[in-house]
């Protein structure tokens, strides 16, 4: 596919600022799509795919903070046996049937009672609604499940990209999606994601889940500073 | 002195079932560590015979609330009906009230880093309804009374284990548990 003019790396020999933004949101898009699929359990069926996707991370994520360094290094150490056991690790952390070691729900961390389907969940629900979306089985899967929140972010970035390709940065569409994206990160993701990642890092028994948690921590630590 | 609402706790009717406490938690969906009402067992040796007796206590909405006196930010206030209110928007979590209350009523909410306490469901009282704990007691052992006009025979100001009421003049009255006849094999 051809990159449209306004997304060329340089325009008339001059570095194009929009290009950076474009590339960057591609990186994030890839990241959030991955997290979404991972937390919705899709990638676990095919551990090879999981492994290759993880390895790709090292191609496009720069180890710019300790967590990222550690995470990216871990990826290279992942063994086959770990890939075989990742499912059990993953289940103990996010699925059950026992008490979850790292519940993937915002309200489990943010609601005073650590319960599901609390105010946080409904806040997320109305946020989705603003973007014209809702949870496929609403009322059954808590809206603030990380798999869904990540999918939502990926969705926003996707649409931002389209508007980026079609017109100039700062144009309203891209702007709104960008705004929604940062709002959602600020109002929801960073309110709990670091605690969550720490739980994973603490309890996970494979480098797979730990690495992903470390990278998520690292990426968001940087996002936190980027976003206004 | 005008109106002063308070709790009448009937320890003869109370069976220590904790429904009052749970009704409160259910109504406000409270953090597990916050117990606006607590059912306190009375020590066995406080009465002639070992028995299972309780006093169910929440905020005593004292006539002279220490919490209100010591609070540096004026988060506490007393309504005309004597209910001691606490305004979280003013509270800065200095824990002064926790230090000053003789009944451990104010609790520090680890989530919001402020103090939390029973407000006698003032919003329900204003609607003429019963507080959650009163409505939730299967034995009807808790009532709201106006202690200025209340004088029931047998009602007392304290039970064994309850701190000296002279300090804050708590607006709580108790019905003493009666100790029935026991035919025991250890006597």
């Amino acid at each position: 596919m051809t990159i449209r003019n306004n997304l060329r790396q340089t325009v008339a020999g001059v570095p194009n600022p929009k290009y950076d933004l474009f590339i960057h949101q591609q990186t994030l898009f890839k990241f959030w799509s991955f997290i979404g699929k991972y937390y919705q359990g899709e990638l676990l069926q095919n551990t090879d795919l999981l492994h290759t996707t993880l390895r790709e991370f090292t191609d496009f994520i720069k180890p710019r903070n300790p967590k990222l360094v550690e995470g990216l290094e871990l990826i290279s150490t992942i063994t086959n046996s770990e890939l075989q056991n990742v499912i059990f690790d993953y289940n103990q952390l996010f699925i059950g049937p026992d008490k979850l070691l790292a519940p993937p729900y915002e309200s489990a961390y943010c609601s005073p009672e650590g319960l599901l389907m609390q105010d946080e969940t409904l806040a997320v629900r109305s946020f989705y609604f603003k973007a014209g979306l809702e949870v496929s089985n609403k009322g059954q899967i808590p809206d603030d499940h990380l798999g869904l929140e990540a999918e939502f972010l990926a969705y926003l970035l996707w649409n931002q990209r389209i508007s980026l390709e079609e017109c100039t940065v700062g144009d309203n569409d891209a702007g709104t999606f960008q705004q929604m994206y940062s709002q959602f990160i600020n109002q929801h993701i960073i309110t709990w994601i670091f605690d969550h990642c720490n739980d994973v890092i603490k309890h996970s028994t494979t480098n797979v889940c730990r690495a992903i948690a470390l990278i998520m921590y690292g990426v968001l630590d940087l996002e936190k500073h980027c976003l206004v | 002195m005008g109106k002063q609402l308070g709790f009448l706790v009937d320890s003869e009717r109370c069976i220590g079932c904790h429904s009052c406490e749970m009704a409160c938690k259910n109504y406000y969906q409270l953090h597990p560590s916050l117990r606006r009402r607590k059912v306190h067992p009375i020590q066995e040796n406080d009465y002639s015979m070992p028995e299972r007796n309780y006093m169910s206590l929440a905020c005593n909405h004292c006539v002279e609330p220490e919490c209100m006196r010591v609070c540096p930010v004026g988060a506490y206030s007393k309504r005309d009906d004597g209910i001691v209110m606490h305004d979280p928007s003013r509270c800065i979590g200095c824990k002064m009230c926790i230090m000053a209350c003789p009944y451990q009523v104010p609790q520090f909410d680890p989530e919001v880093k402020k103090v939390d306490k029973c407000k006698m469901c003032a919003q329900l009282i204003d609607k003429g309804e019963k507080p959650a704990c009163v409505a939730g007691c299967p034995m009807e052992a808790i009532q709201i009374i106006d202690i200025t006009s209340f004088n029931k025979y047998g009602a007392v100001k304290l039970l064994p284990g309850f701190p000296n009421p002279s300090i804050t003049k708590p607006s709580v009255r108790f019905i003493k548990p009666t100790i029935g006849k026991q035919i025991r094999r250890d006597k």
Partner: protein
Amino acid sequence: MDKKISFNRRTFLKGAAAASAGLAIGSSTSSFNLTGLKPADAAGDNKAQVFRNACPRNCYDTCAILSHVEDGVIKRVSGDPGSTYTRGILCAKGFSYTRRVYSPDRIKYPMRQKGRGSGNWQRISWNEAYTEIAENILKIKKEYGSTLPICLDKYSGNFDIMHYGIEGMMSSLGYTSRATGTPCWPAGIDAQTFDMGTIISNDPEDLVNSKYLILWGVNPAWTSVHSMYFVKEAQEKGCKVVVIDPVLTQTASKADLYLQIKPSTDGALALGMARYILDNELYDGNWLHNNAKGYEEFFGYVKNNITLEWAADKTGLPKAVIEQLAREYATTKPANIWIGYGMQRHTNGGTNVRAIDALAAITGNIGKSGGGAQYAHLQTWGFNYHAMMQNPPEGTEGGGDRAINMNNFAAEVLAAEDPPIKMLWLACRNPMAQDPETSVMRKAFEAMDFVVTVDQFMNATVEMSDIVLPTTTLFEAPGVNVSYWHWWLYLNEQAIKPMHEAKNDITIAMELSAKLNELKPGSCTFPTSGDLEEWVGKEFNDGIYQMFGINHWTDLKKGPAKAKNSQVAWKGGKFQTPSDKYEFYSEEAEKFGHHPLPIYVEELKTTDKYPLRCISPHWKLNIHSQFQNLDWMESINNEPRLEIHPSVAKEYGIKDGDSVKMFNDLGYIILPAKITGTVPIDTVVTYEAWYKSKDFNVNYTVKAIPADMGKKATGMPGIAFHDNFVNIEKV
């Protein structure tokens, strides 16, 4: 802003590589592929609704609940004022329901465990689960030519009528093995069945009409708080309340008179009282003449075999006290006895209940408002059991289901032969925590080829399963409930969608049936589809409509209904015994190997090796293994204690809070001591309960000794839970 972003964003981006990576994800012309999310249809409905629910727990009170729902989420629950029994009030357990529905600990998805007890759990789809289960069923059928190797253990975790669909599912497979009987109360049921033909109790709201009330081995203050209200009301109206119990229970603390009887000697007290009533001619000759059979023989037995001195010696109660009790009981009218389930959990529990019934009969208290001998009733349970009644598949051979004694379950599962038991299906049940002889139970589970458990929380039983299926709470599926104590009928509406992937038992049955028929057509007769609410409707019949004075089951959506004019048991004096009379002398009893008369059967006594009796009654913050695991309960109490009498404690050098080991031949538990004068000198007390993440289980020490009765009415004798003899030591 853009500039700032693009600048900052340089921070963790590898330009060139990223470019390729960024572009590697396909053309923007292809649209974003939503999975967990979808385009929102209408505006999210956030209107507040109130639904009617019915607590389905195994409890006297069976409360009418209102659930307050907003945005499809339960915000809180409250009591339904429509019921004059629960009076719009719940209990500590009922008020905690939101913690259960929205607990992050809930089992959310069907899961398979690689290695029973290994903790290696794998999430699977419902389809995978059904396939694996169906294949196992079919394999067993093929191998043994029958489905008898499949055993169902389901009981009281949920008494909603719809949940009998679980039995229905089993019936629709063919003939299977069934955990039969009931652990809690069979001895008493048989006793009253021999005496009166069945169990019927007065409306508990009628307690207020009593002038004299004996609470015999029952602790409503903990197990029936709503009845306790009526007890207190009666007391305030001048009724004398007497509690007879080895333990000074919460109820005893509220009584006018408490008698600390020696455990398991209740019959001796009753017969002693009968002797006094007889000697002083305080009995109701007319009533006996018109309504009773064999009272002469009974009187003869009492005259020749019973003395007050003997009764005093047996029960540990002074003669004078027994005389006074007998006089007061016989001369105050109406006088009421509430016979608890606790006192019949002994090897002589049944005959003891018969002896107490006899007291009520000779004083002519039976059939009277404010009188009677209350145990329980099943009069309001006349549903169609449509979900339960399923036919075996065409050409199923064999003589019907095989009964496995629920009260000796583990041993009988292991002993079962041709065919042996290979597969367990557990629902509404947690035998690894609640059944006696835990160690044997573990062996039984280990001996299985395949174990399926349907539950809401991880517990000892789920740990020992191959597949666990998440099931709904009362708020997540429709149903209908009645009580074995009060006379109300409650509809249970679905208030919210099932959380996560939880499914109702009937849905599970339907979908499993579909899978079975897909793999082997005709292998399961259970309907493969149907609307759950319609299924609720199918449980009703004219009998129910008449009894409750409703025209259609949907009337219950407006509020609960109470049975008409059935508030006083045996009013007409017509009993359901062979002789239509009250039978002091029961040939039926004889048929089942008991003495025809309510004679005294010797109680089990402590031994030198195990000098203490351990009584393990219900705890106020749980029902068996439910509720105590919720955080709100934990904040009140999260520590089981062993209650020890001060002088016993001194003898063993145990101080309050000391860690104590309670043991016998079966096993041991270690827990902190609570020194209290509420327990007798020859008995220790700890409450049966399942504490999440605590290795406490009193059943490690409880042997499955059968109680004397239960076979006739429930198919199996009960368990003598309270004939558990132990020793203790400080650790």
